[in-house]
């Protein structure tokens, strides 16, 4: 099924989407494609906060910017943002990929688990336990695939990769002030 919407959409557009292709020509409100399971959601404009929150699968493409908490608690979705993302994006991100072609706000990847983050532009202060990691061939390959699927012109080599340092997976008193 394909759903095309000309114009902006409000809260939770394409929420829990399963299998459908949803094309939105315009901006999107809070919780775009939240908890998406599969399928494709493409927004030509920008998205408000919590885009792709807790989403389990599928591909979310935002041509413009995404506000705060993009990809919060994501669980397997792939998100490609053409512009910038706001603070605390990929907060507690569990699995999946967040590709940011612009800049990322402060707190990126705070308390991240096993999700991958790719950023082309600048990052603010990284969130707790989020670190830059080497961009290995398998990541180039993954990034190539996602950029192609999203119709992006950027080259994978221009990106840096971020992920979990895995230092906070189990509580230790010496890390008490890392949070």
């Amino acid at each position: 099924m394909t759903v095309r919407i000309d114009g902006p959409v409000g809260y939770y557009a394409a929420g829990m989407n399963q299998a459908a292709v949803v094309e939105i020509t315009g901006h999107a409100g809070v919780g775009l494609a939240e908890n998406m399971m599969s399928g494709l959601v493409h927004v030509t404009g920008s998205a408000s906060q919590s885009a792709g929150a807790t989403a389990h699968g599928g591909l979310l493409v935002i041509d413009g910017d995404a506000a705060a908490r993009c990809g919060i608690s994501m669980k397997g979705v792939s998100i490609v943002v053409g512009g910038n993302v706001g603070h605390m994006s990929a907060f507690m991100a569990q699995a999946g990929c967040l590709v940011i072609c612009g800049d990322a706000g402060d707190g990126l990847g705070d308390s991240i688990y096993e999700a991958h983050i790719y950023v082309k532009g600048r990052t603010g202060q990284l969130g707790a336990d989020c670190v830059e990691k080497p961009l290995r061939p398998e990541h180039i390959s993954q990034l190539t695939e996602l950029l192609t699927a999203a119709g992006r012109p950027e080259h994978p080599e221009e990106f840096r990769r971020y992920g979990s340092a895995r230092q906070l997976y189990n509580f230790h008193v010496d890390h008490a002030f890392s949070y």
Partner: protein
Amino acid sequence: MTATTTGPTPTGPTPTGSATSGPATGCATGIDPAAQGLRENATFDRATIAAIRQAAQTGLYDIRGGGAKRRLPHFDDLLFLGASMSRYPLEGYRERCDTNVVIGQRFAKRPIQLDIPVTIAGMSFGSLSGQAKEALGRGASEVGTSTTTGDGGMTEEERGHSKTLVYQYLPSRYGMNPRHLRQADAIEVVLGQGAKPGGGGMLLGQKITERVAGMRTLPIGIDQRSACRHPDWTGPDDLRIKIAELREITDWEKPIYVKIGASRPYYDVALAIKAGADAIVLDGMQGGTAATQEVFIEHVGIPTLAAIPQAVDALQDAGLHREVQLIVSGGIRSGADVAKALALGADAVSIGTAALIALGDNDPALDAEYRKIGSAAGYYDDWQAGQDPAGITTQDPELSSRLDPVAAGHRLANLLRVMTMEAQIIARACGKAHLLRLEPEDLVALTIEAAAMARRPLAGTNWIPGEPSTPPSPPSSAPGQACP
């Protein structure tokens, strides 16, 4: 608490633990210090000393299961006024006293029909074994009531054995998917929990097995500390839209509950009503948890008794009392507690800790095994540790296989039947042909605190603290009147 599990990482018994908060008596020599004239410090009692020593030695705070252990104003502090000259009772074993309750008729096309007003509270697979979840489903279904998922998604054990299943929608959204939403009989949007209002879920690494990790999309063995806020809404106006989304996904069939931890129940209930809830679940601070910091359990939130009248006020002020159902949990142990909660204005109650005890938690027959892990039967609260010899709060296959879900489910059904019959005994004595006809006027308080919180007069007086004295009020319903 036992001092043996002292923080987020599992630890063994500590030298200070066994003689402090466990079942130990006196000192190691067997001589009672008090008999020698020694006096324990009320401020720095042995449990406090142990906690301070433990913090100093390990750098860890205590995490445990269960609810608040401190003495709190509770249902024990209320008494029923049985019928006498001015009211006539119903025959205890002969006259009908109905127990059914309908939840969710405000907006849902398919409200929940329960045979008894005692439901099973949300408890996750992960915190509990698969066998325990199956037993809860079996027990609840045997007596026509509902059980509830938890912070870990829906399991086949639970869905398959629960005639009526409430599916929790939590901040973490572990395992959340539209298929399970549609398979559920009701949806419970969880904002908070009585043991930790303002806190998120917690499941420590020793219980994050391959299956649990897979259901939650987490690495095996990590300490899971869930979000305390929903990721895509921040207030009642957003929640209204979120509830509309959930209704749309489920074709407006399922009742939508909103669960709150008791802290500011008047405003929380008022806002949940505004957001479109069909029912409110109100969990007081005696409500249990699988794993939470001791300091959180004991120092955040308000007692169940104090929370109910405020919640009822909000429902009445909205003109929706009995239309939006109020389900109360947190320290419900007996039919007397059920009756008192209903008399104060609840439509149903939920049990969690009592249900686990019915399954076999803290069984005296397992005392030797509890002692091996630094606790004792009647004291065991290390539900976070995954070492439960009863096979309930564990993911260890050997331990969990000890629990027979059929027998344990039947024990739970027995408890639910007894609680219901006890509540009926009280209701008939008060002249009520339905449990929901119980009313505040049937109650008096034993303590000033309970009188003030429950807003019932101190027994033998017409004094309610904070309110002008008034003569006893006439009954608000005709005796024997059945509930719709």
